[in-house]
C-alpha cells in the first residue's frame, strides 16, 4: 500500500482520455452499444419495480413493492416523454412478478398468487381472484415470493424466500412451487434461500437467482430442475407435507464442505449453474431475462441477462449442459441503471429494468427507477460464449480476433477458486489455484479460440482475464473478464 490514491485516480483518468483505440475517438464504452433510456417517473408514483410485463394491448405493466400496478401507455416512445401512467391496481402485498394470460393479469404477492381483471372496462382492475394460497407467511419481511412467467403448461413457478436467512417458519418457505392453471400447488424444488428473480431460458427450463448467505457462498443462478434440492436445508421440514411429490427428504448436507463434494453424496442437490463472484460481479443477484428477440437485442440470442441490485447492473450469462447439468459463464454487461436493478423484462424493443434500493443500498442512487436498455445496432467486441472442454475452454467472440494476441498465452490470466458450502453466512473465495494455459489455438475463422489448460479444477470458478486480446481491427474487449463455474469437466 505504498501507492498514493491520487496516482490511482490519475491512472483511471489517463485510461479514459489518452488510451484511445485507433479508429475510435475514445475507448468504446458500454453506452456505445447499449443505450440506456431512463423514464421520468411522476412525483406521485413510487415505482419500486418488482415485476414488469408487456400487455397484449401494447401497454407496459409495472408492479411495485408497495403493492401497486401501473399501466404505461406508449412505453417505447423515445425519448419517453409522451408516456402516460395510470394505476391499474393498488393495495396488494409486495408484487414481485406479473404476467398477462388472456384477460387476466397474474400477480405474485407475498401471500398468494392472484389474478386481476378489469371487468367494467374503466382501466382499473375490479376483480382480484386468489388462484392459490397454499404457501404461508408469518409476518417476517424476508418472506418474499417471486413469480415466473407461465411455462408451456401454463404453470406459474413461485420461489419462496425463507423466514429470514436460516429458517422456514411457514409452509413452503424455502421452496419453489408450481401453480397450475386450475390453481393447484405442485411442490417442485427445495433448498431455496433468498431469491431475487425467476425466469425461463430459451429452452423453457426455469432458473432463479439466489443470494449470498447461509449455504450460499456467493450469489448464483440456479436451475430449478423439478425434484431437486437447491442447497439450503432450512426449509426441508416441509417434505413432510408434500405427500412424496418430489420424493423423500434428501440427506442433510455437511457444513463447511464444498458444493461438489456434497453434490456427489446427495443426488438431489443441484449445484448452482453459475456463481456470480462476490463484489467482482455483484452483491445481490436479482431478475432474469432471456434474449429471445431473434437478434433485435444484439448478438447474444439465447443468453440470459441477470440484474444485480447492489451494483445497479445487468450481467450476461452463457449456459451449456455438461453431464446433464447446466453450467456456464457470466460476464459484465451493462452498468449505470438508475436504482438497484430488480426486475427485468426482455422485449423486441429492448430490455426493461426496474429498480429499487429500499432496505438494501445500491450504486444507482435513485430510490426507484425504470430504464429501457436498447441495442444501438453496433456489435461490441465481447466474448460471446465460453464452453468447457475436457482439457480447457473454447471461447467464441463477437468479432474476429487478432490472431497474434489471441494465440499468445500471455494474453490470458487464469485463476480458480471455490466457496465454502456452509451453514454460516457467505464464504470467502477459497482453494485458490493457478492452472497453466499451455496453448491458445485460434480457429481458422478467427471467431474462436481454444485454450488448452493444465490443471482445470472441478467445482471451481475459473476466473479468466483476457487482457491482451484485440479484435482484428485492434479493439480491446469491451469486458475482459469471464467467470466460468466448472462444476463438471466434460468427458469429451
Amino acid at each position, binding site marked *: *500500500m505504498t501507492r498514493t*490514491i491520487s496516482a490511482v485516480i490519475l491512472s483511471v483518468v489517463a485510461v479514459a482520455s489518452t488510451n484511445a483505440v485507433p479508429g475510435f475517438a475514445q475507448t468504446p464504452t458500454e453506452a456505445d452499444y447499449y443505450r440506456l433510456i431512463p423514464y421520468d417517473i411522476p412525483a406521485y408514483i413510487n415505482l419500486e419495480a418488482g415485476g414488469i410485463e408487456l400487455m397484449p394491448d401494447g401497454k407496459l405493466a409495472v408492479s411495485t413493492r408497495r403493492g401497486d400496478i401501473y399501466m404505461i401507455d406508449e412505453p417505447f416512445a423515445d425519448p419517453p416523454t409522451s408516456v402516460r401512467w395510470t394505476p391499474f391496481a393498488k393495495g396488494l402485498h409486495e408484487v414481485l412478478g406479473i404476467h398477462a394470460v388472456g384477460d387476466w393479469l397474474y400477480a405474485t404477492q407475498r401471500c398468494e398468487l392472484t389474478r386481476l381483471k378489469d371487468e367494467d372496462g374503466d382501466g382499473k382492475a*375490479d376483480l382480484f381472484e386468489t388462484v392459490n394460497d397454499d404457501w404461508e407467511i408469518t409476518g417476517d419481511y424476508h418472506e418474499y415470493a417471486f413469480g415466473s412467467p407461465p411455462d408451456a403448461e401454463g404453470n406459474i413457478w413461485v420461489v419462496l424466500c425463507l423466514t429470514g436467512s436460516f429458517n422456514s417458519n411457514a409452509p413452503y418457505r424455502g421452496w419453489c412451487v408450481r401453480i397450475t392453471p386450475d390453481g393447484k400447488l405442485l411442490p417442485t424444488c427445495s433448498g431455496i434461500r433468498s431469491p431475487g428473480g425467476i425466469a425461463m431460458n430459451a429452452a423453457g427450463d426455469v432458473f432463479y437467482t439466489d443470494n449470498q448467505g447461509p449455504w450460499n457462498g456467493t450469489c448464483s443462478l440456479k436451475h430449478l430442475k423439478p425434484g431437486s434440492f437447491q442447497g439450503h436445508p432450512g426449509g426441508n421440514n416441509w417434505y413432510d407435507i408434500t405427500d412424496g411429490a418430489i420424493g423423500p427428504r434428501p440427506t442433510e448436507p455437511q457444513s463447511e464442505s464444498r458444493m461438489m463434494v456434497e453434490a456427489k453424496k446427495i443426488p438431489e442437490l443441484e449445484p448452482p449453474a453459475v456463481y456470480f463472484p462476490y463484489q467482482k460481479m455483484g452483491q445481490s443477484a436479482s431478475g432474469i431475462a432471456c434474449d429471445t428477440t431473434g437478434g433485435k437485442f444484439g448478438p447474444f440470442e439465447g443468453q440470459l441477462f441477470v440484474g444485480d441490485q447492489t451494483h445497479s447492473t445487468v450481467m450476461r450469462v452463457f449456459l451449456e449442459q455438461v453431464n446433464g447439468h447446466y453450467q456456464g459463464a457470466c460476464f459484465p454487461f451493462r452498468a449505470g441503471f438508475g436504482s438497484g436493478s430488480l426486475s427485468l423484462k426482455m422485449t423486441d424493443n429492448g430490455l426493461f429494468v426496474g429498480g429499487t434500493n429500499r432496505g438494501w443500498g445500491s450504486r444507482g442512487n435513485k430510490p426507484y427507477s425504470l430504464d429501457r436498455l436498447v441495442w444501438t445496432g453496433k456489435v461490441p467486441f465481447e466474448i460471446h460464449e465460453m464452453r468447457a472442454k475436457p482439457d480447457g475452454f473454447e471461447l467464441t467472440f463477437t468479432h474476429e480476433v487478432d490472431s497474434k494476441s489471441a494465440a499468445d498465452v500471455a494474453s490470458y490470466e487464469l485463476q480458480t477458486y471455490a466457496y465454502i458450502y456452509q451453514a454460516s453466512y457467505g464464504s470467502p473465495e477459497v482453494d485458490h489455484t493457478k492452472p497453466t494455459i499451455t496453448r491458445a489455438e485460434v480457429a481458422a475463422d478467427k471467431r474462436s479460440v481454444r485454450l488448452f489448460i493444465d490443471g482445470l479444477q472441478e467445482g471451481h470458478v475459473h476466473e479468466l482475464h483476457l487482457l491482451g486480446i484485440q479484435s482484428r481491427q485492434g479493439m480491446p474487449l469491451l469486458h475482459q473478464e469471464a467467470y466460468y463455474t466448472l462444476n463438471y469437466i466434460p468427458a469429451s
Partner: protein
Amino acid sequence: MPPRCPDAFSIIVAMLIVACTLAVPFASGQSTSHPIVPGFERFYAQSSGDVAAGELLIGELGCLSCHRAEAAIAARVLSKQAPILDHVGLRVRPEFLRAYLADPQKTKPGTTMPNLFSSVSEAERTEQVEALTHFLASTGSLLEGGPVTPAIRRGEQLFHTVGCVACHNPRREGSTQLSTSVPLPEMESKYSVPGLTEFLKNPLAVRLAGRMPHMNLDDTQAREIASYLLRNLEVASKLEYAYYEGNWDKLPDFDSLTPTSYGVSASFDVNVGRENSFAIVFRGRFRVEQEGNYVFHIGSDDGSRLKVDGHEVVTVDGIHPFSSGKGKIALQPGIHELEVQYFEGGGEQELKVEFQGKGIDRRALEYALVGSDDEQKATDRFQVDPTLAAKGKQLFSSIGCASCHQLRVDGKQLASERTAKPFAALVARGGCLSGTGAGVPRFHLNDAQSSSVAAAIKLLNNATTLPEKTPEQAITSTLIAFNCVACHQRGELGGVESGRNALFQSDQPEMGDEGRIPPHLTGVGSKLQPEWLKQVFDKGAKDRPYMFTQMPRFGSQNVGHLIAAFGQVDPEVADHGITTDIDERHLKAAGRKLVGSEGFSCIKCHTWGNEKATGIQSINMVTMTRRLKENWFHEYLLNPQQYRPGTRMPAAWPQGQVLLPTLLDGKAMTQIHSVWEFLSDGAKATAPVGLGTDPIILTAFDEAIIYRNFIEGAGPRAIGVGYPEKANQAFDANDLRIALLWHGAFMDASKHWIGRGPGFQPPLGDNILKLPLGVSFAILSSPEASWPTATAKELGYEFRGYRLGEARRPTFLYDVGKVRVEDTLVPDSKEPFTSATRTLKLATALPVENVWYRAAVGNSIEATDDDWYIVDGSWRIRLDVESTIRKSAGKVELLIPVRVTSEATVITQQYAW
C-alpha cells in the same frame, strides 16, 4: 516468525472440574494436569524447545518474580503479575484457600500457580497451609450471598455472549470443551455472589496484568454472571421478600398492593423478577452487640426506604440513577426488625444497604442479618485464629508468596524473604523445570512446556548480544500473551478458533461474519488513530452494537506498547493529496448529500448516533472520524474489499469511477473528502437526509383504499380497508373474519414502506374494536357443539379474493365448504364514529345443513329492546335475522343458524362501537 496454529480442534474431553470438597485431604499432588496458558496450548502445544513459547511461559508463569533478570531479558518477557491479595479474604473462601495452597493443580486443574509444599512432610504442609489460610482470611471477611433464579438465566446468556467464552469454556450442557480455554476452579467452593460480583466489575483492580480484562459490566450484569457461575451455591436465606409488578415513579403504598410473588434471599438482590416496573419489600432481622447510635446507608436505582423496628430511618425516593442517603437510629443490644422497600421504574436496577456503628466500620448490612438456624451455623463458619494468622504472615514472606503476590498489611507491602538464583545463573534443567528438588515450587509443566522454557533460558543466557524484539515480534507475543488472538486475526496469526466460532453471535444475522466476528487487526495501525486505540485499551469499546462480543479493557499500561508497534509495522496510507478551494460548508453539504438518501444512502446500513439504520445496523457513522485515520478512510472507500475481504460494504466509487458526476465536479477524491469533512462534525453534524422515518399516512378520499400487509391484530395476511367515511376495517384473509374495526385515520405505511419493512403495524386511527380470533362460519354437528378452534385452512375453507364495487369498496369472497360467501362492509354515514353495516350473501349449488354464523363472542352479550345486542358492555351489534345466544367454552356467543340454498341467503348486521 509467526507461530503456526496447530490442531485447533484438539479438545480436552474430560477436563474441568474435579469436584473438590471444601475440606480436601492434603494428599500430595498426584495431578496429571499442567498449567494452561491459552497461547501456548493453541500455538505451541505440539512444539518442543520453541524459544518464543518459552518466553511466553516465562512471562505467564511469573518466573522473573523470583529469578531477577537483566533489563534486556526482562524487556523481552511480558511478565504477568500475580493477583493482588490485599483483601483476598473479602472475595475468596478460606476453605478454598486451604485446599488450593495444599495442591493448586488438583484444586484448580490448569492453574499457573505452583505448589510450594510438594517436598515437605505432610504434617509440616498441613501446619503451614493452615497458618497461611488464617493469615489470608484475616484480610477480610467474605460476604455470603447466593444466586437468584432470574439472574442465573440472564447471567447464562451474558456469559455465553459478551465474550467470556472467547477465553473460557462454554458451560452449557453438551458444550464443546477446548484445550485452549483458561481454566476455572469449582466456582462455588471459591466465591460468594457478592464477592465474585465485585471482582467481575473490575478484574483489573486485583489482577493488574490484564490477562483477565475488564468487561465493562455494570453492577447488574456482573451480579448476573456471578449468579450463573455460582448457580449451585446454596446459601442460608435470611431475608424474606415480597415482589410486586407495576408502574410507579415513587415508592408505592405497599399495604394497598398484592404481591405477585414471595421468596427468600440471602442478600438485597433485586434481580428476582423482571427488569423494569417492579417493587420489592425485604423483611428480616439483624443483631447489634452494643448499645449506641447506628448509621444506615441506603443506595438505590430507583427509589428505596429502610425501616428499623417499624421506624423510618432513611428514604431515597423517586426515579433516579444510583443515589444514596443515610439516617441514624439509636439501638439497644439484641435483635431488631428490618424492612427495606425498593422500586424500579426502568433502566438499571441496584440496591445497596450498609450500616456502621460502635466498633463496626461501614459494611453491608447482610453481615449482621440473623437467620432462624443461625446459632448452629455459627460454629461452621471459619474463625480466624490470630496466632495462626501471625504465623501465616511470616510464612507469606519467608516461603516466597510475596515474591509474586502483592499484599499490604496496614498500608505496608509484605516483602519476600525468599531468594532464588538470578535468571542469568539458571542452567535450564532441574529446579522449577522438574519441580522435584527440595523447596522448589512445582509447576507441573509438561514436556513441551519445560523444553520450551529450557530453550528460552539457554538462548537468553547464552546470547552475547540479545537482539531487541522487532515490532512485529512484539505485536505477536503481546497478542498471544493477552489472548487477543482468541477474537482477532492479524495476518496469518490467530483469529477465532473453529471450535469457538459458533459462540460469536450477533443480532444482525444478515451481516454474516462481519456482524459477529471481531474485526481483524491486519493493518490496524494504518487504520485506527493512536488516541482511539488508547481509548479502546483503557475503556474498551462498543462501537459495533450488533456484535454481542464486547471489546474489554486491557489497560494501556499492559498493552499500550502495541500502539507504537502497530504504527511502526503498518504503513501509513499515503496522503491522498486532496486540495480544494471549495468552501468548507459547501464541502460538508456535499458530504451530507452523499451520506444521505439522495446520495449513496450510507445511512441505510450504518447507524447514525442513536438513530437506527433502515436496513442492517452497521457501525456508527458519528464516531468514524475519531476512530479512523483520514488517509485510510479515503483509500478504504475506494476499495473496501482490499481491506476487508468479503465485506458487504459496497464500493461507491468502483475503481475510482464517479457515479454522481454532477457533484463536486465529479471528482471521486473530492467527493470522498467531502464525506470525511462532513463526518468530522461527529454528533454535531446536521443529520443526513433520509434519517429516521416520517409517517406515510394513507387516507381514503372519495373511494375506499386497500392496504395488504402485516397489520397488528389482523395477522400477516391482513387486508386493511380505509373508507372515506373514516370507519375502517382489517380483514384477516387467513381466518376469513373481520379482525379490527376502527374510526378516524386509516394507516401509517412507513413501517412497511421505508426500509425493509419488518414488523406489524397497528391502525393509525382511534377506537379500535378487536374482534375475537377464530372463523366466523362453522358447520356444527349439534346446536351445542363447541365452536371450532382450527384455522380456516385446516377446516378446508378457501379465500377466493375480492371484487371492488361502488366507490371501490371490496366485497370479500370466500368458500366455507360448499357455501360461497360474499362479505361487504359499508359505513353508514359520514358522521364521526359512524356505525357500519355488513352484508353476508351465502349461496350453494346444493343445500347445506347445520351452517352457523357467529356474529359475536364475548364475556357477556345482552339483548336490548331495540334489536341491538351489547357485547362486553362496550360495543353493539344489530341483526335482521333470528339468532340465539349460548354459553360455550366459557364465553357467550351470538349465533345465527343459516339455511343455505341455491337462493342466496342474506344476513345483514350493523356494528356500532
